[in-house]
């Protein structure tokens, strides 16, 4: 039995997907810093785990979105992204991201889907929210 598709018409506005756990690794941060020459990362201090660069917020958000939409069409394009941060994230920290299908519409023949995310830490504190606008290929 084949998996159900998650094309534009299949998505239901208001759908909330269960939280997805994510832990950023030092390796991921290292690959990012080296490949993209990111010199903006605050240095670690006081024996605490290093801070995760804010530019990598998309990793835990995208991870949850990709898991919420495993059967999405190939060729979707990321059009807009908003982040709001509430507290810093450290390497190795457990994060839980909930994905919500917030809206969808067609404009000039393009299929737009707006996905919202809410990421919390292990203590249940809000870490970041996101709003992603994608153009679905089908």
């Amino acid at each position, binding site marked *: 039995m084949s998996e159900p598709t998650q094309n534009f018409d299949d998505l239901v506005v208001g759908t909330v997907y269960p939280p997805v756990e994510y832990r950023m690794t030092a390796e991921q941060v290292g690959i990012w810093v080296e490949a993209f020459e990111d010199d903006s990362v605050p240095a670690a201090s006081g024996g605490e785990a290093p*801070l995760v660069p804010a530019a990598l917020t*998309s990793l835990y958000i995208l991870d949850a979105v990709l898991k919420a939409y495993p059967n999405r069409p190939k060729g979707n394009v990321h059009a*807009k992204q908003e982040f709001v941060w509430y507290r810093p994230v450290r390497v190795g920290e457990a994060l839980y991201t909930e994905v919500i299908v917030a809206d969808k519409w067609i404009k000039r023949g393009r299929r737009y889907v707006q996905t919202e995310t809410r990421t919390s830490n292990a203590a249940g504190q809000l870490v970041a929210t996101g709003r992603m606008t994608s153009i679905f290929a089908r």
Partner: protein
Amino acid sequence: MTKKQVQVGDRAEPVSLVVTQERINAYSKISNDYNPIHVDPEFGRKTEFGSTIAHGVSVAGLMFRAVTRLIGPAWPYQNGRLNMTFLSPTRPGDRVTATAEVKEVREDGLIVCEASCQRDDGTKIMVCQAQGYPV
């Protein structure tokens, strides 16, 4: 040592990077996003873009860096906000440069910036508004 006072009109030193398939692949590795539009040159050639394209959020890292140069290294972590729009894709071989400018400094110290990335040919590829407190 006193913190530099940020003023409306202050501009960050530009930040540049050349987009390569290797960088795109590196971002795919850390993000686990292997959408063929990013990693499959054959697939990319058949799309409207004519090639693979970079993950927008990876190139946006340049705007983060430009904004950081204005506000400070920990600006996102205290109610920081960033809203970006991807205008045009970037392809392997594109050299992109991010610039940022302070647009507003509010009474409580919140700094509002606008930043953008453009290719060497002047095409603007993404824009954002970012705000945060200098830390």
